[in-house]
Every structure is written in structure tokens, then in C-alpha cells.
């Protein structure tokens, strides 16, 4: 029997991670994410898992990557300033292809900004925060139920694609309490990283299977010897300066995500088939957007709703497919313009893209989005 819980978003996220098999958490307190660490500190020892509060966020993600190298599903959680600190080691996890999940509960920025207020100002930090090219996978919940469910998805994707997966939650979602339906644990589909099927002497640590471009991963302590580095490396994991080897590595790690983008991308729509105006919102904003869309429909306007659940890779094909009837896409965002540019790119000039911005630490009211809809219809 599924259970019903009344959880805060941050607690649901931690519970989802545990249900996904997460057995290691490395963190450093920061509002509005701390309840994730607090929940993990309480729950992990009960499951023979390990929790550690490190000396800072740099150390937290480092410990999280280290734990994953031993085969444990590992999580770290933070908010804006901490997410900035994690970026260098996040890059190492992309380069060394180490699965981890990183949660950023977005608050107002830049800098210390607004610790207790919502924003969506880290969307591009999630995409491009670390230096160098890499294929980002970032998921964005809109409800407490989704905090739970996307935590499971994030671990499954991290394990499957052998790379970091980011969850972009936000302050409102993190602290809001809602009903969560918790499925029975044996009904949850879990993915584990591919383990090598060859003997230790035949193990070539970064030799990818051409079927999916993903190399099998041995855990430290599993009887294999191998080298992990943040330097660009060849199939042996050893640093290389050879142009063909560099290119092979770079293109493979981009391709392993691009090839399977259809499996990764999730989105949600309502009343979109004949919509002339589409409201595209994500995270907490999507909920306000949806109620505005419903009100506009009730008033007889042809308005639809599109919500990317996967922010990266951006669901461009999926959005494009909705643009036959639409003339305008409104993008309400709690920043001065981040995802709106992605929408412009994806829509290829076929529609007018209207930016709606709010950066005062508050959420949009449905009436504000409704007003914008009325302006454009």
C-alpha cells in the first residue's frame, strides 16, 4: 500500500533520495537547503548509510564524489553561494564521469543575496557554472510530490549516464508542506551503474560501449585498479594531449546524453492543442502560471501551459511541436532573463517570446500573469 505523508519539499527530496538508494550525503548548512542535510543526518545511519558535515561546500561535493567512487549512491545539497563553490569539483565529476546528485534550492542572489527568499537565478549556473563544455542534466520540481519523485529520477539518470545530475528546487518549494503519496519501495524502478564484466586485468576504465557511449564503472574496493583524474584522459583514464584522444573523449561525453535525450526529457502541458498564447513556467512559478492559464481559459482565451520538468537538456523539440497554433510564448521567471533566451532559441523566430520578470524575492501572483496574458491576446 502506498503511504501518504505531509512533508516539506526539502524533506520529500531527502526521502526520495533515500528511496533511490542514496547512502552517502556530504553537505554544509545553507538556507534554504539545510533540512535536506538534517533529514539525511537522521535517516542515513538507520540504513547503514553515511552522513558527513564537511568544512565547506567545496569539501562536501569532493567527499560526495569520493563516496561515489566506492560505488555508493551519493548526494550533496546546497543553495546559491554553496552551488557557486561546488562548481570546480562539479566539473571534475563531469570529466571523470562520476555519478552524483547535486541539489540547489534556489534563493535570491547574486552573492549572499536573499537567503530566505525565492529566485530562479541559478538556471544558467546549473547549465554553464563549471568551466568547460559538458552535457548538463537538470531537473526542476514544481510540487513537494515531485521533489520526492525527481530525486529518484535524478539518481537513476546519474547512475545510467555516469555523470552529475542537478535538481533545481527553490525556496518556496523547499519550505512548503504538501501531501506526498509514497509508493511501496518494491514498486520503485531503480537504476544502478554498469559494473565491469571483464576481469581486473582486462579492465580499461574509460572504454565505452558503442551501444550507449558509457563506460562500465568499478568501485574502489571492488578488486579493480584504475585511475581517476580531472585531466582530459584517454580510455585508460590517463592524461592525454593527443588531439584525437581529446576529441574522442569530449564528443563522447556530450553524445552519451544527446543520444538519449528523449529518455531524459520530461515536460507537462495543459490546454495547449489550440493555444494561441503559451505560458511557459518552471518550478514554483509554473503553478502560478497554470492557475493564470486556467482563469484565462475560463474567460474564453485560447491559452495553454507548458512546463519543462527537465530544464537541461532543454525540451526544444517538444516545445516546437506546440508552436503550430501559438503566436506568443510568455516566460514568467524569477530572474532578469535566463530561460527566456533558451525559449527564444528553441522557437526559432516562429513566435513572439515575451519575458515576464520578477526579482523582488516574491512569487508571481496569478493575477499578474493573467494580466500579461490579457496584454498579449
Amino acid at each position: 500500500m502506498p503511504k501518504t505523508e505531509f512533508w516539506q519539499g526539502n524533506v520529500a527530496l531527502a526521502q526520495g533520495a533515500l528511496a533511490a538508494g542514496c547512502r552517502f550525503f556530504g553537505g554544509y548548512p545553507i538556507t534554504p537547503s539545510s533540512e535536506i542535510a538534517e533529514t539525511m543526518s537522521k535517516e542515513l545511519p538507520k540504513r547503514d548509510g553515511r552522513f558527513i558535515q564537511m568544512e565547506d561546500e567545496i569539501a562536501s561535493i569532493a567527499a560526495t564524489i569520493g563516496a561515489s567512487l566506492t560505488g555508493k549512491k551519493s548526494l550533496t545539497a546546497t543553495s546559491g553561494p554553496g552551488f557557486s563553490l561546488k562548481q570546480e569539483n562539479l566539473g571534475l565529476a563531469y570529466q571523470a564521469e562520476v555519478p552524483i546528485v547535486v541539489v540547489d534550492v534556489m534563493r535570491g542572489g547574486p552573492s549572499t543575496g536573499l537567503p530566505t527568499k525565492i529566485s530562479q537565478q541559478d538556471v544558467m549556473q546549473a547549465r554553464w557554472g563549471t568551466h568547460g563544455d559538458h552535457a548538463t542534466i537538470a531537473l526542476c520540481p514544481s510540487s513537494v510530490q515531485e521533489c520526492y519523485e525527481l530525486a529518484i529520477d535524478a539518481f537513476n539518470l546519474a547512475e545510467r549516464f555516469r555523470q552529475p545530475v542537478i535538481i533545481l528546487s527553490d525556496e518556496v518549494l523547499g519550505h512548503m508542506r504538501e501531501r506526498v503519496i509514497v509508493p511501496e519501495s518494491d514498486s520503485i524502478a531503480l537504476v544502478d551503474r554498469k559494473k565491469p564484466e571483464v576481469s581486473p586485468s582486462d579492465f580499461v576504465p574509460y572504454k565505452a560501449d558503442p551501444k550507449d557511449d558509457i563506460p562500465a564503472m568499478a568501485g574502489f574496493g571492488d578488486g579493480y585498479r584504475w585511475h581517476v583524474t580531472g585531466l582530459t584522459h584517454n580510455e585508460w583514464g590517463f592524461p592525454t594531449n593527443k588531439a584525437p584522444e581529446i576529441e574522442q573523449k569530449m564528443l563522447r561525453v556530450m553524445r552519451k546524453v544527446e543520444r538519449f535525450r528523449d529518455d531524459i526529457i520530461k515536460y507537462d502541458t495543459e490546454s495547449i492543442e489550440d493555444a494561441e498564447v503559451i505560458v511557459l513556467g518552471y518550478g514554483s512559478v509554473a503553478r502560478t502560471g497554470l492557475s493564470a492559464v486556467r482563469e484565462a481559459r475560463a474567460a474564453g482565451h485560447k491559452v495553454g501551459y507548458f512546463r519543462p520538468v527537465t530544464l537541461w537538456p532543454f525540451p526544444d523539440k517538444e516545445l516546437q511541436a506546440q508552436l503550430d497554433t501559438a503566436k506568443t510564448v510568455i516566460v514568467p521567471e524569477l530572474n532578469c532573463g535566463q530561460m527566456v533566451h533558451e525559449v527564444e532559441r528553441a522557437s526559432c523566430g516562429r513566435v513572439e517570446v515575451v519575458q515576464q520578470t520578477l526579482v523582488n524575492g516574491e512569487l508571481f501572483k496569478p493575477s499578474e500573469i493573467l494580466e500579461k496574458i490579457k496584454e498579449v491576446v
Partner: protein
Amino acid sequence: MPRPEVMDWLRTRFFPHIWCPGCGHGIIMHAILRSLVDTGKKPEETVIASGIGCSSRMPGYIDACTVHTTHGRSLAFATGIKLANPELTIVDVMGDGDCSAIGGNHFIHAARRNIDITAVIMNNNIYGMTGGQSSPTTPIGAKASTAPYGAIEPNFNLCELAAGAGASYVARSTVAQPNICEKYIKKGIENKGFSVVEIMTFCHTQFGRRNKIPKPVDNINRLRDKSVPKAKAEKMAAEELQDKIVTGEFVEKDTPEFVAEYEQLIERVRG
């Protein structure tokens, strides 16, 4: 030539290594490998972690579970590895810059937790890899590419720092005494807690060239001549010790180790 029993621990397929001919880092690698062999460790249950620097390239050449992390952060990675799999033996190799400048915070916290990791610091008093900039251990007056008029900053005493922060084994030797290095590293590996073995080495290309000691052999002799065993140093005046390297074991104590404490916590919670 390496001792034959360490050959199984070398990734000879990845040679030649990147170190300058004569660099002190090779002597330290050999001492680490001998210590691992002598303590009966298995390569597939041993992790060698490092940060970034010439010294930190060492894990690439050791055929174990090896991880070359980001500059200064290796102890944080190693902490996650050890806590997640306490069965593993962990040796964390660091340069002086890696350990005490960018990595200073992780260093003191690893010592405070007394986590069962052996930190081997290869102190050449300079940033070798990036071209001879000054480090927190560059002696006052010595020249570096970012201290063209001589360094003016006081130095860290890394052993005192480790002892003050809570490490349960702390020792210092020099590459002029490789057998003593080996003995200390071995004791570090056997100590259940955070062990710090500082090994004074040299970078003849970056430090030596700028400070009129460009030949490896002169650097080794200099390290030998400047070392003073702890017992002797205790009877010497502060002024006499100014330019000297005090060698020996400074801390050997039995204090609670972090991972073991966590395992007990799990037992308590799970009943």
C-alpha cells in the same frame, strides 16, 4: 632502480613520468611503495589520492585505486572515500602549496576529525608545476617567481599545524634519508587515525635555479646538512635552529578515529 617487489605497484605502461630528471618526488614515491609493500597492503584495496601539482601526479604512476583530484581538495575526496568504504587504505599525497595554501582548511579538518588517512606532504618550498611561485613554506628571503626580491611572509610549520589540529601521528624527514621516510610512512599507514608525514624535498628547476642550487645532488646534500634530529634540536637555541630542518616523530597518540566513531553511531542508532 626500484626494489623488485614494488614493480607490481607501478603503471610502467604510463611511463615516462613528467617529473624533471633528478626531482625529489621520485624518491618519495619509492618510499611510499616500499611502505605499502612492507605493510602488506593490496593495490586493489589501496587508494592513492592527490590534488594538483608536480607531486600530485604521483597517483597516475601507481597501480592501485588512484584519484587525481582538484588543487588542494584531495583530503576532502579521500574523506568521502574512507567514510564510504572503511576497508580501504588511503594515502593522500600532496605538495606544500596544495596542502597548506589552497588546501589548508581541508588539512586542519582532516586532522581534527582524526580520520584514518595517511597524508604525505612533499614539501619543496615552492610551487613547482606552475613555475616557481612562492608557497606558504618558501623561506623568508628565498627567491620565487612571485617573490623576485625575496619572500617576506612567515612560514607554516606543517607538523606543528597538524599536531595543533589533532593529527594522531606526525613526523618529518627529508629525501636525504629515504629509509627514515619509509619508516615514518609505514608507521603512518599502520596508525589508525590521521597521520601526517612531511618529507622535505626539493625542486632544483624552480626553487634551486633561482636560489643558486640548480643541481639535484647539491639539494640533497643541503637537506642532509640542514636536518637536525628532534632530540638534538631540543638542546639547541632558537637562533641556531632558524635555518634548520627538525626531523623526527612529533606526535604519536591514541585518540578516537572518525570513521570508527561513525560506525559506532550506526550501531547505536540501529540498536
